[in-house]
């Protein structure tokens, strides 16, 4: 059975009595331990899909289940099972780096000593050992995002969800973080969904890439085996197919 099942998912927002479809009949599956990247245009409903996955938004129609349970309906079932890394770091400014990294563990009632031990382990993994007593405003954007990654991994979740996690970092920093992040995911073999609007990033990270149209629905489902990642021509070919799919989706609509 797949870890994540999304079946005919539809999300409709109401803005001043006007309905607006952010997701329309979206179908996909993610296997346990798989790393799937999701690409799509700006505003196509990627973040909304992630919020449904996190149980923060209720699906209007259809069903989205992780381990057979719905994150919104069975909200508390997912205690300690999910983690997210967002586009902005979402660190709490009144907590130090270490305290931010222990935030999830504290919510899950881990004892103090274990919290600190686990958080330190992950801070070391992301290279922030010497900054545990700093406040977020004292760090660079890249370092703050690293704290966010440590916070997400610290609770050892079953599913890791990322929304443009490196989206507003500079190219070089983003590349570095992406590599480190990929290593952590491979090491821990977590089921992960990585949302991005950057096709190159999707092809680099994902073992499989889901291409979304607007409103969000599945346009393409591309396998990206390791051999393809090493082969620039093959990669460029896939990229142009993805761009074509997204573009033709746009022209069909207008």
């Amino acid at each position, binding site marked *: 059975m797949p870890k994540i099942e999304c079946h005919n998912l539809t999300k409709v927002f109401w803005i001043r009595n006007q309905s607006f479809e952010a997701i329309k009949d979206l179908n996909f599956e993610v296997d346990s331990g798989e790393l799937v990247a999701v690409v799509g245009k700006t505003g196509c409903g990627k973040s909304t899909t992630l*919020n449904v996955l*996190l*149980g*923060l938004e209720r699906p209007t129609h259809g069903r989205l289940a992780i381990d057979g349970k719905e994150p919104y309906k069975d*909200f*508390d079932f*997912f*205690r*300690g099972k*999910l*983690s*997210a890394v*967002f586009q*902005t770091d*979402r660190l*709490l*400014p*009144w*907590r*130090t780096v270490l305290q931010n990294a222990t*935030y*999830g563990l*504290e*919510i*899950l009632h881990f004892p103090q000593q274990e919290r600190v031990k686990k958080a330190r382990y992950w801070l070391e993994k992301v290279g922030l050992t010497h900054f545990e007593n700093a*406040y977020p*405003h*004292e760090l660079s954007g890249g370092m703050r995002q690293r704290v966010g990654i440590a916070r997400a991994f610290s*609770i050892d979740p079953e599913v890791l969800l990322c929304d443009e996690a490196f989206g507003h970092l500079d190219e070089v920093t983003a590349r570095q973080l992406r590599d480190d992040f990929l290593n952590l995911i491979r090491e821990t073999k977590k089921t992960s969904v990585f949302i991005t609007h950057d096709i190159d990033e999707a092809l680099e990270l994902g073992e499989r890439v889901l291409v979304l149209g607007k409103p969000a629905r599945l346009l393409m489902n591309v396998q990206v085996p390791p051999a393809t990642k090493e082969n620039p021509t093959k990669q460029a070919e896939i990229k142009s197919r993805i761009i074509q799919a997204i573009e033709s989706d746009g022209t069909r609509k207008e």
Partner: protein
Amino acid sequence: MDGEPLPKRRALNIEMVISLGALLLSWQVASLFLPEYVLPGFQLIFQEFLKMAQERTLFWDTLLTLYRILRGLITGFIVGALFGVVMGTVKKTEHYLMPIVNFIMGVPALSWTLIVILWFRGTETRILVLMLAISFPVFAHSVLDAIKGVSKEWMEMTLVFRPTRGQVFRMLILPSIVPHVLTAWKVTVGFAVRVVIVAELVGASTGVGFRMLQQQSLLNMSGVLAWTLVLVVSGLGMQSLISMVESRLLRWRPTLS
């Protein structure tokens, strides 16, 4: 919540010494040319302080007034925070409670002073209710605004971990409303000092306000001024106390330097 940086405060700066010094000097010079019931010189005001200290009123009445302010504001804070938290966390309650809060806030402090004198007999009850009436709406508003202002992004980040309601309140809402609550305290303390004096003037036989009235009926300008100084210093003292608490609690804020 906005992380508006606060400039670092220094207890004494040279500009302050100069401007206050100039004010005091011109006062002293003017006092040489004007009668003492208009502008008494420092030596007279100082003598007044000595007298007040000897009669022990300086210590006890000041303490009493401060105690009245503090007790009233703490009560007002508890009631106001309760209102704010309920309005901010229980759906629809804002529609019912806010009109009441706003109505009470709309009644002028002077009207409250007269009302409590007619309603209650004991001095302490009168002043407590007065302080409560003028302060709790301010606290209710600031707590409500602060709760509404808790970042949606932080809330979502927190909810991913599936916290209990209590955890959300303790770990997210409480720390993010602290700065707003401290600001509300600074505002109300200044306000309370002014109001408590009026209440003591018209309805008490102790406290700084009453002593001031006494001196005025004796036509003793130096006495009135000495007690006024006590008030100014107490007000500023309480405010800088809050600032100290603020800089301790809000160490995490970026500072301008």
